[in-house]
């Protein structure tokens, strides 16, 4: 065990720090609270700038515009980005999930065609996986692609699609062989969202925003050259995308949570409870301490998982607890925030008396999605039970 940064890690971090110091936008605070539809061009420009500095996709291999960064360096990247409060990048799914999948499974022609524009944010990507009747049971999806000469004809519906409203391209999982066993008849295709027959509708979520969309496909023609990987091997391609989903995301979250708890501690010094600052209330102290400690443990788990992957090349068992840990921790953390803020906790951003522009009411509602998106807590526990502990499959 050695938790000091290596020389390479220090060099990486310092180079990034220097670059960020002169390039991170100073006016992000003016944009942060605006709807993403308004700030999207801003986020595109920021990604373009990162790309010019070769910082847009540090985990990608060098030959595709990345830095072949180790997991630890990726974690450092997100920590530094959070430290300077950098805006997010516009094409986050393209950079985080879909680009790596194309690099791993795509043809040379596909890599040449798609990769550069993912990096530059010229083409925004979305992901068509879940369906109204295929959520946790993803392999039960029904969107069908029928062969017609050198094209597929796609019909069906997808749901919970982030960036659907702005997407130029979609990584779409479709059923290409209805007679095969459910995992075997799937194919991943790359679909131009401007194709005739594609319709995008906003899906309003319980927070009031529309982060997600519903996608409808009616006789959409997709050339066969847009198959990613092999036909009827879509399950494996889709799984490799989901694996990236669990990559270094936690490093970002750790700093976001850390910022939450630091702010709550600050607020506890001024909020009054029983005639004295909440910071002196024993119960509030217990709860803030519990959250602080768990946020630290989340990072320790993460570092252990990264070290395991680095040493063995495969994610270790402790990696599987990350999603479960952070999503449930965030719910506990936001509940503590609500207890601390009392009646003020419910105020929305538009209210002049809202604390911190209403981020706490928003975060409280938003965390309900955390234990559902990217694999529900129930699915995570199934994965641990079956794949880690070796218990018989329960479904």
């Amino acid at each position: 065990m050695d938790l000091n940064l290596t020389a390479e890690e220090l060099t990486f971090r310092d180079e990034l720090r220097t670059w960020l110091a002169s390039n991170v936008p100073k006016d992000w605070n003016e944009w942060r609270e605006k709807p993403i539809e308004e700030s999207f061009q801003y986020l595109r420009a920021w990604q373009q700038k990162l790309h010019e500095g070769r910082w847009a996709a540090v985990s990608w291999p060098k030959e595709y515009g990345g830095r072949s960064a180790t997991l630890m360096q990726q974690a450092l990247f997100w920590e530094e980005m959070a430290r300077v409060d950098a805006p997010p990048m516009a094409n986050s799914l393209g950079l985080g999930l879909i680009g790596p999948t194309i690099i791993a499974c795509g043809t040379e022609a596909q890599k040449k065609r798609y990769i550069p524009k993912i990096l530059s944010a010229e083409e925004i990507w979305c992901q068509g996986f879940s369906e109204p009747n295929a959520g946790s049971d993803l392999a039960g999806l029904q969107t069908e692609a029928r062969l017609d000469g050198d094209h597929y004809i796609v019909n069906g519906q997808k749901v919970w699609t982030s960036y659907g409203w702005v997407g130029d391209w979609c990584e779409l999982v479709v059923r290409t062989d209805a007679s095969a066993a459910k995992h075997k008849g799937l194919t991943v295709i790359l679909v131009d969202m401007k194709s005739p027959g594609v319709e995008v509708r906003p899906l309003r979520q319980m927070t009031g925003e529309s982060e997600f969309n519903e996608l409808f496909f009616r006789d959409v023609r997709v050339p066969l050259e847009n198959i990613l990987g092999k036909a009827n091997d879509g399950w494996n391609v889709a799984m490799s995308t989901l694996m990236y989903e669990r990559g270094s995301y936690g490093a970002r979250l750790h700093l976001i949570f850390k910022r939450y708890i630091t702010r709550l501690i600050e607020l506890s010094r001024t909020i009054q409870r029983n005639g004295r600052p909440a910071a002196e209330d024993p119960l509030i102290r217990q709860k803030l301490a519990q959250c602080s400690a768990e946020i630290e443990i989340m990072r320790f788990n993460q570092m252990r998982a990264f070290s395991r992957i680095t040493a063995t090349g495969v994610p270790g068992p402790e990696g599987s607890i990350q999603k479960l840990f952070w999503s449930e921790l965030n719910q506990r953390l936001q509940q503590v925030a609500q207890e601390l803020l009392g009646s003020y906790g419910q105020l929305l951003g538009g209210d002049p008396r809202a604390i911190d522009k209403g981020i706490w009411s928003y975060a409280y509602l938003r965390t309900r999605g955390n234990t559902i998106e990217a694999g529900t807590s129930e699915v995570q526990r199934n994965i641990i039970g079956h794949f880690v502990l070796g218990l018989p499959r329960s479904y």
Partner: protein
Amino acid sequence: MQFGLTESQAFLKDSARKFFAGECPSTEMRRLMETDTAYDAALWSKLTDQGYTGIIFPEAYSGVGLGKVELMLLMEEAGRALLPGPFFSTVVLAGSVLEAVGTPASKEKYLAPICRGEVRATVAILEAGASWNPRDIQLGAANGKLTGEKLFVSDAAIADFLLVVARNGVFVVDSKARGLKISPMSAMDLTRKLYVVELSNTPAEEIGPATALPRAFDVATAALAAELVGGMQRSLEITVEYAKTRKQFGKPIGMFQAVQHQCADMYLETESSRSAVYYAGWALQENSPDAAAAVSVAKMYASDAGRTVGNRGIQIHGGMGFTWENDLHLYYRRAKASETAFGDATYHRERIASMVIDSGSISARGA
């Protein structure tokens, strides 16, 4: 940055596991817990041969000179085997107190024999108020004599000497000293016996001020958390094995999600405790500014997790989990005793609060 075990650390952990499996299997553990002191001289000499009795202490005092991470690994494996007897009291607790508080001469006199496996020892801390806060200690020394009562003193009856924490210093009391009375307390954990220590004008030798105690207590606290991790690991293994083989409604019960998800939570709690304990060991070894906070994070989490892992394990076992013959309750008893020893989760949350709310942050190194 590398948060994994080095080759030699992995080797130490593996050989400790094999050692305890061979020398202290469940049958032996159960035999010892039925004895008065849970101490076995033959087992002690084997622990000594392994170098475990001197593991973290300097070679100058016959120690092995390994680090705190290594201590965590050894204690994890000792906890997994539910090692009975005075190893924690003697080596981890008394040894760390001597190292932190003692002069070179007193270390030569008391620590070196511990490392060489020649003596057993313990530390008497709690009083009637049962507070782990050193500020609450009442007992004081006058003219080199101690008078008062200490409670919950582990393994006192088998100790050759006791370190007594007084208001005004740390003192060594010989087990044969006059005015010393040691009587057993009847407590849940059968593998680590607790005693009342009464001192009545008992001659004592001062070895140093109490000011250096927090550091020694931090090492002991982290080691206790490591031991809890080992207990959780074993409880998880026993439970998963049972869930795979026990059949009801024609299926292994581990196929039911109500059971499987509890196993997954046991795993999450065990692994998270382990991460926190390893970090604490590293922070102590490096004298990191956040070492004390890291110890509290580990003990806080492991105290609660040790109990909930036990709760879940017993529940999943159904009636079998409630029997004497199943080992789970022995781990559960130890977990309850260790939960309160050196401060329960509530105590450590308040300690964390005093660090993060009242002064600065507990930011981890490498962040």
